């Protein structure tokens, strides 16, 4: 895997919040019946994480699970272990109608950190990002300016954001515009 590079090679920008492309990440689209015991066991076995509630992320020792839709999770893990994780999922889901597919290279991940992180996102996403409305562990699919994206809030008050790899530069650019010094809003 020595040839593998992430979309923006861990580019970073320091504004009134810090925006960083986080490098390669293992990501798996898992579609199936989220209420089934088998799927629950598979996700547990693969990541250690429980099935997340609607619009939440859960964390286990080997990865995270994010609620994408009523029949879809996004599984996050180390880039290097993604094939093993898929193998575990697939093995545990034998006989069940489900789909687990590697999308690690189809996406880019950004971290937005710092006191202004909420406001940087709130300039681009039609989402209530106030502290009362969006809390650690909350996960939201929406748009960032003109492209689809998903993001969640970590316990350390930083956001992580996933978008398609082809628009990584666009997303980075609009996040940079949002985080420009002097652009603090003072609302969130």
């Amino acid at each position, binding site marked *: 895997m020595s040839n593998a590079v992430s979309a923006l090679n861990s580019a970073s920008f320091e504004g009134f919040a810090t925006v960083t492309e986080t490098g390669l990440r293992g990501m798996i689209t898992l579609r199936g019946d989220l209420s089934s015991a088998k799927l629950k066991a598979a996700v547990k076995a693969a990541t250690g994480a429980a099935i997340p509630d*609607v619009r939440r992320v859960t964390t286990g020792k080997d990865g995270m699970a994010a*609620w994408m*839709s009523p029949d*879809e999770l996004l599984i996050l893990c180390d880039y290097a272990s993604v094939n093993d994780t898929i193998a575990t999922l697939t093995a545990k889901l034998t006989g069940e109608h489900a789909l687990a597919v590697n999308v690690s290279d189809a996406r880019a991940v950004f971290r937005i950190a710092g006191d202004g992180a909420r406001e940087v996102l709130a300039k681009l996403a*039609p989402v209530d990002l106030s502290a009362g409305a969006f809390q650690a562990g909350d996960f939201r699919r929406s748009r960032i300016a003109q492209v*689809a994206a998903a993001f969640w809030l970590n316990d350390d008050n930083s956001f992580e954001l996933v978008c398609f790899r082809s628009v990584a530069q666009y997303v980075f650019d609009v996040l940079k515009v949002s985080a420009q010094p002097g652009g603090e809003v003072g609302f969130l």
Partner: protein
Amino acid sequence: MLTLQCPYCGVDAEETELHAEGEAHLKRFGPGSSDDDFETYLFMRENPKGVHFERWRHSNGCGKFFHAARSTTTLEVFGTYSAQTYEPPQDIKDKITAKYPGWSWREFA
């Protein structure tokens, strides 16, 4: 600028997260159907001044299609519901009836 609640992920999604997908509860006519039925399926539209049952997709969101009952004159939303239904749920129909006694829409009222 509409806001509709996605019945799948519970988000009060503003229109920019959504995509309008036209009239709901159309019955598909395939090979073997009459010309009239096929034309009705593809082109003839209720287009009411009043409550409209329509399809939306939470395209910048959970990706699911859903149905909405919405007034085209006041933009009041009587409810959103699963796309996997043949007609609107009773509670939504009741809500519409309370507001517009005697309304009807194609095969249901």
